[in-house]
């Protein structure tokens, strides 16, 4: 088992024929992802990387039975691409694009709230289930099959965690990069919940960073409903205050906002918090022993 994506996922790429889309689609095909085609408006009917190109997502769903999409379109068009996928009935929407305006994402969040889909990202590295499907931009070889699920806001820090877990001899079920933007489709708590309900996942690594309350919300959920050990880390213990967060935003976030406060809440909720990011793998090995 795994979550979100596996070898049976029927994956398309939106922004298929662009530079980014082409490069990463090739990488995904090479990894073994079941890529059934892609969408570039106006290029429907063509073939790209030996896969069909469609004009619309609806067409890709109808003709190629697509159920998962990865979005590489430029920031100005990303919100539209997500909503098109949701409207077409795509179940798993992964948006890699960085730099989507917050206002656009607010509209997206509202639009997809009553659709039967799950959005991951934007501004994320994607999702990978080793030996099943790589739906993202991560280096596939770092991730080996195993029993630990990873949830992270950050790309390279996800790779770091996976590398440590694999070197500790544990391996990965699914790694989910949820993205670091103010508005994202799937929260830390939701991603953790997916992994808690996955029978193959025995332990979870949860990596957060300063800003917002998602880690604290996840920690409180874990305290109530957790059935597996969770190892946690918050990046930004040494980050200066107020550089990325608005003045008034810090009030709303309240005391849950700093790395220190988040780590304290996580510890209180029974999460095995590591102070150093170098200890993620060894700590997971210790708690699963």
């Amino acid at each position: 088992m795994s979550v979100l994506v596996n070898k049976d996922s029927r994956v398309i790429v939106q922004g298929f024929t662009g530079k980014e889309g082409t490069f990463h689609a090739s990488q995904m095909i090479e990894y073994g992802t079941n890529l059934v085609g892609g969408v570039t408006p106006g290029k429907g009917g063509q073939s790209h990387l030996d896969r069909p190109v469609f004009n619309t997502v609806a067409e890709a769903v109808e003709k190629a039975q697509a159920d998962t999409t990865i979005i590489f379109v430029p920031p100005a068009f990303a919100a539209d691409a997500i909503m098109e996928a949701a409207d077409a009935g795509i179940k798993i929407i992964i948006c890699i694009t960085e730099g989507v305006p917050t206002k656009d994402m607010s509209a997206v969040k509202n639009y997809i709230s009553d659709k039967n889909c799950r959005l991951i990202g934007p501004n994320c590295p994607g999702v990978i289930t080793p030996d099943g499907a790589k739906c993202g931009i991560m280096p596939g070889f770092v991730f080996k099959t195993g029993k630990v699920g990873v949830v992270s806001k950050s790309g390279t820090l996800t790779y770091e965690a996976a590398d440590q877990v694999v070197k500790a001899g544990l391996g990965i079920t699914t790694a989910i990069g949820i993205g670091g933007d103010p508005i994202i489709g799937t929260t830390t708590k939701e991603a953790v919940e997916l992994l808690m309900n996955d029978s193959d996942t025995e332990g979870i690594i949860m990596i957060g960073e300063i800003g917002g309350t998602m880690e604290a919300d996840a920690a409180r959920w874990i305290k109530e409903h957790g059935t597996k050990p969770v190892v946690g880390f918050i990046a930004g213990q040494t980050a200066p205050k107020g550089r990325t967060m608005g003045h008034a935003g810090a009030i709303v976030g309240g005391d849950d906002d700093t790395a220190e406060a988040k780590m304290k809440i996580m510890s209180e909720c029974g999460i095995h918090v590591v102070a150093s990011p170098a200890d993620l793998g060894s700590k997971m090995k210790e708690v699963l022993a």
Partner: protein
Amino acid sequence: MNLHEYQGKQILSSYGVGIQRGMVATTPEEAVQVAKQLTEETGTGWHVIKAQVHAGGRGKGGGVKLAKNLDELKSHAENILGMQLVTPQTTAEGKTVHQVLIAEDVYYPGESETSEIYMSVLLNRATGRNMIMYSTEGGMDIEEVAEKTPHLIFTEEIDPATGLLPFQCRKVAFNLGLEGKAFKEMTKFVACLYKAYDGADASLFEINPVLKTSDDKIIAVDAKVSIDDNALYRHKDYAEMRDVREEDASEVEAGEYGLSYVKLDGNVGCMVNGAGLAMATMDIIKHAGGNPANFLDVGGTADAARVEQAFRIILKDDNVKALLVNIFGGIVRCDRVAQGVVDAYKNIGEINVPLIVRLQGTNATEAKKLIDESGLEVHSVILLQEAADKVAEVLA
């Protein structure tokens, strides 16, 4: 992107939000000239001189003064222009004042008492919706109000499908205890303010204070406005409002090379790919007994030229006693970064601080070989823990 008060007010005013009117000046002579013009246009007798810098608490640092005549005005403008303004939100060094806003006096006496209100518009990250936060306790430090009298802070969340609705504007005005003309003016103020926030792709509006004048007008006396950087492509006119003098020179330079850099005051410089790993690397430095001198994300295309530029920027800081490169190669190939390190070392010439290079991921082995064979005095490590140990060792 942060804006000056006068720029923020320009945006508000363009959406019909009532503001304290004013004009900007860069010399004392110009200050006098615009003050005369302002009196003609508004009838104001007194003027307020306000330093234009990107920091709150300007009044506390002597950056806001009231002038009752033009002589006073000129003397205040002389004192404020060019001063190093230190406020609770700046460094001890303060910020140089390049411009002053000459504004009308809005606290004139009249039929009713004036009152100050706090109002901000921002994103509620928990719901993904914007909200208006407001309080009767205007003119004060809002953190203090939140701590001591949280029941005096109200919020109103906006449904993105409908926008701010008239009943919500009325609710704000009722909660602020307003009546009559002031009530009506407030509903209009709130409606226009939200329209401005939405239309301008703002990420923060903080209006402290909003003033109810003695003749029951509602106006923004101050304006802290930030625009969503990701949306600037559709607001070219706002993008031009950027004042790079308000930003750290090294950070501006780094931005020109596509590097995300924040200067800090520690002793260990670092160059990393990815924001999360960059913050984690800063944390590792702290755990190893050092202090991070910067945050630096080289981004997804860390080629030799960028690496060299990053080195030059980090090494400008004399406090840097060691430099840690931490790259986890995904798309970025480690051997290319390694080549960048070797080239940078040769091109820059003297690098007098120990250099620790940790390259992991795509082509890490080739990268380590490249560095080891370069003959440079570089500490090459593979694991994150080894990097931490090495930092501790070179600082000892």
